[in-house]
């Protein structure tokens, strides 16, 4: 798909922007200003979180990057332009699992390949994607037979099956209970480290953003823009020990304070 192989491990490539948003604004037909003057660089191989309250336009930002909607103002530049279009190698995980209820888990995961006409050679990739999220045993189950966390795993497997460089996740774990969410956070970090994807993760949870990311982008409420950016320089792998450490608590406090200032500035 892309000319270069997966080079996220090589230092020359690491950190160069994959996609750059400059002065991006989005006004909906209803007159609602969702975003205004958003500047954001997503760098190759990083794990970056967009943190903001509900309705701050962070989901809209993700949809803009995915090409599901166009910006009203500003520009979205890709480093590797593919015929002037958004590179196809994007995986998207929605807030809800968004699985087709009439299809088995395997058929759901196969869908992206099928839509691209690659269904014939899909089976090994579907198997690998399912194994990657620990769902190999449930390939022939229907979504309704799965728990909320397992549905989300299936959704992640589907996003990964096309082997995208960039994975966009829109509050994927917001509806899950805490224990399931912690486990999926850990598994997501493991996937990120083993697969070397670039991940943009939208969340309204300070704790989740600090636990997962290298960089937290705090957004202002409507119209959404970047309030500030905080580097989370704790080393990976992060695990339960990190979650209970003083470092983690301190980082959470810093992010929380920025978050509060972003909210206060708006009102």
């Amino acid at each position: 798909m892309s000319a270069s192989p997966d080079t996220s491990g090589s230092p020359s490539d690491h950190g160069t922007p994959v996609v750059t948003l400059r002065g991006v604004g989005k006004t909906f037909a209803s007159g609602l200003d969702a975003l205004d003057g958003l500047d954001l660089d997503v760098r190759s191989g990083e794990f970056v979180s967009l943190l903001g309250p509900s309705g701050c336009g962070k989901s809209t930002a993700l949809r803009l990057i995915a090409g599901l909607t166009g910006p009203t103002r500003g520009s979205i530049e890709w480093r590797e332009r593919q015929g002037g279009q958004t590179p196809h190698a994007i995986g998207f995980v929605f807030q809800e699992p968004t699985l087709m209820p009439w299809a088995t888990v395997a058929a759901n995961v196969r869908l992206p390949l099928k839509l691209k006409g690659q269904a014939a050679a899909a089976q090994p990739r579907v198997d690998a994607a399912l194994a990657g999220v620990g769902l190999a045993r449930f390939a022939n189950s229907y979504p309704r037979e799965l728990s909320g966390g397992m549905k989300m795993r299936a959704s992640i497997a589907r996003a990964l099956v096309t082997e995208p460089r960039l994975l966009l996740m829109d509050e994927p774990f917001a509806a899950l209970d805490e224990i399931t969410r912690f486990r999926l956070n850990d598994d997501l970090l493991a996937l990120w480290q083993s697969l070397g994807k670039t991940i943009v993760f939208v969340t309204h949870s300070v704790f989740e953003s600090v636990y997962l990311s290298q960089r937290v982008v705090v957004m202002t409420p409507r119209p959404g823009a970047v309030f500030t950016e905080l580097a989370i320089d704790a080393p990976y792998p992060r695990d339960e020990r990190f979650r209970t450490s003083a470092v983690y608590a301190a980082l959470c406090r810093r992010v929380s304070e920025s978050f509060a200032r972003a909210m206060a500035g708006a009102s």
Partner: protein
Amino acid sequence: MNARIAGDEASGRKERLLRMLLPVLMLAGGLVLWHLVVRVYDLPPYVLPGPRLVFSTLVSDWPVLSASLLVTLATTLEGFLLAAFGGIALAILFNQSRLIEYSLYPYAVILQVTPIVAIAPLLLIYLPQQAAVLACAWIVAFFPVLANTTLGLNSVDRNLADLFRLYRATRLQVLTELKLPGALPHILAGLRIAGGLSLIGAVVAEIAAGSAGAGSGLAYRIVESGYRLNIPRMFAALLLLSVSGIAIFFALSFCSHLLLRRWHESALAREA
């Protein structure tokens, strides 16, 4: 805990038994009452035949009635198939093009709200009888298929639609992989209604055709027996029509259950 589950199971079984048993008891009670009314008031068969006479007429007239039953069922089936394909095809067309939908939908509604009994005589003038009967069955039955399929095609999950857009699905892929499977429960609900309605359409048309032609369906038998004051045969024919309607409903419900049982809420066994 276990005792409670067992108790729930037992009460569930009792519930199912009641649901089967009560209608049967009602039927038996009704038949007995009917029989007694005929006996006590000594009603002649041309006023009200007793249930036993209706049943024996059904047996003795079986050669005539079964031939008529086949004619009516064939019309019903053809009307149903036309309604199914026509309704689904039209709904797909409407879904693909707003212009076509806006142009044609009002007329589909008009066709639906105009009583079929009033249209049937006209159809019989302009069409050969068999075609007119079929047209009636179709007109009555296609609308629920159209309306339900349209609803189903328009009720696509927005996130799934976005997902298809993200992977640059073609229009055809969106239709066959997303909209039609998603609309299946709605389509099947429409078909279940259409099954019963196509029988009604066939009967209405046969009655409107009346003695005019070589019609030999069950409805025609009812009209004919009415003229001859052969009331037991009227009842026997009516009974066959009812049983056909029930059979069609259950057959379609069963198909629907088979198609949806793995995934759709409506087909799942309710938890205790």
